[in-house]
């Protein structure tokens, strides 16, 4: 439901990148690169390929102080199925989860317009 395993994997990864950025006092793109450099050689290329696609959105969202839950809803790995409530593991944004998701809907529409 709500994106299931894809959602938890996205949220954990974005959460770790965001925390790495804090620990090393750097931007999200550098933190993502650092995360990929920790992986075994064989996995670094796929990691960087994934980072190429998602880094702009993750960086923008983290720069805007979005929570990892909201970021993963914005890039589509998490969603709210009919009849379900939004899931989150990180603290809820001040404006509340539903308001935050409504706000990023605009971002998602724009992105879909740009063939995200």
């Amino acid at each position, binding site marked *: 439901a*709500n994106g299931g395993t894809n959602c938890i994997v996205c949220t954990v990864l974005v959460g770790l990148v965001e925390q790495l950025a804090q620990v090393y006092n750097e931007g999200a793109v550098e933190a993502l690169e650092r995360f990929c450099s*920790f992986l075994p050689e064989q996995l670094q290329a796929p990691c960087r390929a994934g980072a190429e696609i998602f880094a702009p959105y993750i960086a923008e969202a983290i720069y805007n102080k979005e929570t990892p839950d909201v970021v993963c809803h914005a890039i589509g790995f998490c969603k709210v199925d009919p009849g379900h409530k939004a899931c989150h*593991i*990180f603290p809820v944004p001040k404006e509340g989860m539903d308001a935050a998701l409504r706000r990023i809907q605009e971002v998602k529409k724009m992105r879909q317009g740009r063939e995200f």
Partner: protein
Amino acid sequence: TDICDIPGIKEICNIFDRAFSSHLPADDLDKDGFSTMKLLDNDCLTLSQGLDSETGLPYEEVLCNGTEPRGLILLGDSIGAHFHLPPQWFEAKSLNPSVFKDLLFILENEIDWPELSTATGHVNNTFGEVIKGPVDSIYMRLRERNRCNHRDYQNIGVNGGRSGSMNSTIVRSLVRNRMSDYPALVNIELVGNDVCNGHPDTLAHMTKPKEFRNNMLDTLQYLDEVLPEGSHVWVSGLANGSLLYANVHDRIHPLGSLRNDITYTDFYNYMNCLEISPCSGWLTDNSTLRYLTTKRAFELNDVLRNITANSRYKNFDLYYQDVPIDEVIAEWEAQGGQGWQLIEPVDGFHINQLANALGAAHIWEMLEKDHPNVLGKVNPNNDRIKQLFGDQGGY
């Protein structure tokens, strides 16, 4: 066409299918069911090499005959396989290349560590920071008791294993030659998955007692066809999983360790919201649901007690044993420890390395006290075997 029909990829799909669906070794060139190639005994004993100079008889006859050797076989779930996700993977401050060094090895083993587990642990824990704690196991103690048991173990613990899949798949990947292999000491250990699932209406998806009974009877019937005469089977009951929430619910999850902002209750609720919880009946802040899940677990234990009290088999004797997690926690707390120190930090569901080792000691003592016959005698030739064969070729 299916990608697995394409020549070349087909073989890769077969390897994956063997390993992750049939739970058979991925590479098994000599098809003896044991993954590494050995030209000698299929139970990998090294005592078959050479003849005793005094008697002219094979060493295995001189040093093992009559000493009641046996193999240890674990049939079970992720607890038996020893599922462990390194907490460092979820802590930004701990992330560095060394914590991911064994990533592919860990994934290939389905994040299980049978080589360090309660049943079949047999290597020193040299994996560094990703898994810490002592190693002790039933197999290691059987080997100490009789060196002729060296390398005679199988861990067929499968993540998610429950009585249905145990009967349909898991038990059928057990390998034992009834004529040439020693008797086996088998542990069937299904600690929770018959009452654990990720469904929101979890109670409706739990195994019912009648179905559970049929599955277990079929599994035991199959074992009676494949085990050598003189084997022993002990069935572990389901756990009281309520103790998980009781011990960790208000503690900080590794993913929240940087800002202390995620508790295990948050983690449990998140998994339940995504409907991917390994056990939504126990990993929940709903106390009524935890009670009802434990109630079903105890109903299934009554089924096991009834089966072991009333069933007789040709090739093995059968025992029931409560899973001792409550006692192990109580013993640990009596030494000044705390229950949460025995629970896996990332999933808050499995027992950790320390608990695996403490569990082995506790189960061994229970078996020695209640059913010493299943362990076999102490081999008087142990010292001679050590003197002649050293570590018997290791692992």
